[in-house]
């Protein structure tokens, strides 16, 4: 009897235990959410049929299974039921319609959810899926930083429709982050920081101390971060820097230049203006700002160093963006004496350029500090991957907050973005002895850098999902023209294919198809302002006609696009050549809003009066058919012209007559 009772009791217990699992399942929050969604859908439905369809939805796990995307399983739509349901616009979360993005709606099946949003796809409870529980994997990317999601697949510095990410990536490169931190794709990064060997002949003890204490306070264009050095450290580093010396020949040249007789500052002023130095430098903040501020340069660098740097910049700093100008001995002296007369810091102590008498002990301590503070990462000659000073950053975007050292920062929310933000705005606040310098980012820039960091995953996404900007295989000239390109540092400002700087708005990738050879030669010999509104203009290098011809020939040979016709009118009816019709179109389309022809028009785009001597008709035609194909961000709108209209406009522009001797012709006189 007792046995039977026992059997009954155990059976009951067993049954109860069996019931636990289905009961637990039935009570899971997503099930009640799905039932709520049915009702909401039915309530919002516009027809009885649609309402019925909502009510007939089964309560079940929903998922995207992306076999070729890391075998991702994203069950987010189990709760977020309205993401692709247009009727759910404005519905309360978690049922709202996903906002439109370049990939939504339309790409849910390709990318799922976690590829952009992060978080834990297979989880079906809120805490686990969003990664807010301690046991969960990396958490979701907050919406404020959502462009980090774009950056997981999209490589390259500039990502269309992700301005914050692009800004962050630009700042990472400009601030030299990759010099200390290894990041996939940036293994070969070289900092633009100058070598320090000539500093002892360039500047003085007072200036170098000031600079080490606060680079950006000394020069607003500085890219060197603030290492928050103590007085003792500054002293040691200053002595170390002054213990270095350049080659004997260079030292002799700098010293000899310093002893040269005074030049003509008035003439220097003229040369300074015509050389267009503010295309890169600034004077009292005016100018491009990618090179040092010059308004106090004479209190920063010695006369000898400045003269020698103007004569042979690449002997002093082989990696500088500064082009070599053809200044004569006297002219470089004149320019520097103009600096000496006007570009001084009149509040600076008189001994600002007085050298340091090197104390060997301090210099040795400074040499150690040069290694241990990481200075060598930017100022060293070469830094191998193994020598990178900071930790690698791949995977930083997937760290769990619980694995981060918050140290003293008990004030911070325990999240990865908050930690990263504090790390880049006040890196030393976590613990004493940390080495990362502070970059003085504005809050908005700091946010952008955090976004770019959150995009860094430990493993790259599968090949098929990687979207990197199309690399244009544009050859860079070698030999004689290569040397000229190096001498004039064309790539400091101009882009060629996927290389080069962004100071100039004119990429040279298709220059051979674009401009006439004779025009290039004249322009290189004596450049003039094509777009007067831009502060950045082509410097006058005083290139010889022979050099200019060599460069123009190389452009005609290599930098052409085969889809641009030599003669766009070939095989077209004569009526399409009608400049009269083209002139009417020019007025009707409103081209004069931005372009000047003759004496009237806007000056946003280049003036067009000298078009016939400057641009090739094939280029004009191809440009008019779609300017963005040749420069993606150009503001000149695509008017969607027919072939015939584009030809007529081309014919009109080609028929223009320069009203007075154009600047190009003037260039020919040199």
């Amino acid at each position: 009897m007792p046995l039977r009772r026992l059997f009954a009791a155990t059976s009951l217990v067993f049954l109860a235990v069996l019931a636990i699992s289905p009961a637990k399942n039935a009570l899971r929050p997503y099930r009640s959410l799905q039932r709520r969604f049915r009702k909401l859908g039915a309530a919002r439905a516009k027809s009885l049929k649609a309402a019925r369809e909502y009510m007939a939805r089964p309560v079940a796990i929903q998922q995207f299974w992306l076999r070729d995307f890391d075998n991702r399983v994203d069950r987010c739509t189990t709760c977020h039921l309205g993401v692709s349901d247009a009727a759910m616009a404005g519905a309360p979360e978690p049922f709202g319609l996903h906002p439109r993005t370049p990939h939504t709606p339309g790409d849910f099946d390709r990318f799922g959810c976690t590829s952009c949003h992060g978080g834990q796809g297979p989880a079906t409870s809120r805490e686990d899926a969003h990664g807010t529980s301690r046991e969960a994997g990396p958490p979701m990317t907050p919406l404020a930083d959502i462009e980090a999601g774009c950056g997981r697949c999209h490589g390259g510095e500039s990502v269309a429709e992700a301005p914050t990410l692009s800004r962050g990536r630009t700042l990472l490169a400009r601030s030299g982050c990759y010099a200390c931190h290894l990041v996939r794709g940036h293994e070969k990064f070289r900092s633009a920081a100058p070598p320090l060997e000539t500093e002892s002949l360039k500047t003085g003890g007072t200036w170098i101390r000031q600079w080490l204490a606060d680079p950006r306070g000394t020069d607003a264009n500085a890219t060197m971060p603030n290492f928050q050095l103590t007085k003792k450290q500054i002293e040691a580093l200053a002595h170390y820097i002054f213990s270095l010396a350049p080659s004997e020949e260079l030292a002799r040249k700098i010293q000899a230049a310093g002893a040269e007789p005074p030049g003509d500052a008035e003439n220097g002023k003229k040369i300074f203006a015509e050389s267009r130095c503010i295309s890169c430098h600034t004077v009292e903040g005016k100018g491009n700002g990618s090179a040092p501020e010059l308004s106090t340069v004479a209190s920063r660098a010695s006369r000898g160093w400045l003269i020698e740097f103007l004569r042979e910049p690449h002997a002093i700093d082989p990696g500088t963006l500064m082009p070599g100008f053809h200044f004569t001995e006297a002219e470089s002296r004149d320019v520097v004496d103009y600096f000496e007369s006007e570009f001084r810091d009149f509040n600076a102590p008189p001994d600002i350029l007085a050298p340091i008498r090197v104390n060997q002990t301090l210099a040795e301590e400074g040499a150690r500090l040069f290694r241990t503070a990481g200075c060598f990462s930017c100022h060293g000659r070469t830094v191998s991957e193994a020598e990178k000073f900071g930790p690698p950053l791949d995977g930083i975007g997937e760290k769990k907050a619980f694995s981060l050292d918050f140290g003293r920062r008990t004030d911070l929310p325990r999240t990865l973005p908050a930690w990263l933000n504090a790390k880049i705005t006040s890196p030393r606040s976590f613990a004493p002895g940390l080495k990362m310098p502070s970059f003085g980012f504005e809050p908005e820039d700091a946010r952008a850098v955090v976004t770019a960091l959150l995009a860094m995953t430990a493993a790259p996404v599968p090949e098929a999902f990687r979207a990197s900007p199309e690399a244009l295989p544009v050859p860079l000239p070698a030999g004689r023209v290569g040397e000229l390109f190096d001498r004039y540092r064309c790539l400091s400002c101009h882009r060629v294919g996927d290389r080069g700087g962004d100071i100039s708005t004119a990429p040279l990738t298709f220059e051979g198809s674009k401009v006439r050879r004779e025009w290039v030669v004249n322009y290189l010999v004596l450049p003039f302002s094509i777009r007067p509104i831009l502060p950045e203009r082509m410097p006058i290098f005083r290139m010889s006609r022979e050099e200019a011809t060599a460069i123009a020939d190389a452009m005609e040979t290599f930098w052409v696009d085969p889809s641009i016709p030599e003669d766009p009118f070939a095989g077209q009816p004569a009526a399409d050549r009608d400049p009269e019709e083209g002139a009417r179109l020019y007025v009707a389309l409103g081209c004069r809003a931005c372009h000047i022809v003759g004496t009237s028009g806007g000056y946003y785009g280049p003036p067009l009066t000298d078009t016939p001597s400057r641009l090739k008709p094939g280029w004009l035609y191809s440009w008019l058919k779609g300017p963005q194909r040749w420069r993606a961000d150009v503001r000149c709108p695509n008017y969607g012209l027919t072939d015939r209209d584009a030809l007529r406009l081309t014919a009109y522009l080609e028929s223009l007559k320069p009203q007075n001797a154009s600047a190009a012709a003037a260039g020919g006189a040199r």
Partner: protein
Amino acid sequence: MKRIATVLALAAAAAACSRKPVVRPAHTAAAAAEVPGYELRMGKAVFDHYCATCHGASGGGDGFNSFNLDPRPRDLSAADFQKRKSDPELEDAVRRGGAGVGLSPLMPPWGHTLSDRQISQVVLYVRSLAAHGP
């Protein structure tokens, strides 16, 4: 079965009652409310890049190129202008340009340069200029 039918009937009734405020143009107020930021941010990027040259950074019609233009660019922040033009009208003007809508051809058509989405984003941003404008 009967129960489901009742529920449905009730639901349909509820839908009928609550329908009227739901009718909204798909990409104006609704999008702005749902997605604080994204569409507006993209709209600002488009505006700053393409429009600010003439219409000015805050839409006042005072961009640096405006001084070369006759007629001068529209003051987009003006309250009466904002009130007078509907979103579709603004989108149309951006798409087909001044000449396309019977105004000055100095405002170019952007329909071949910007996508429909970018145009609706920039109109969304132009709407936000009224709030911040003088």
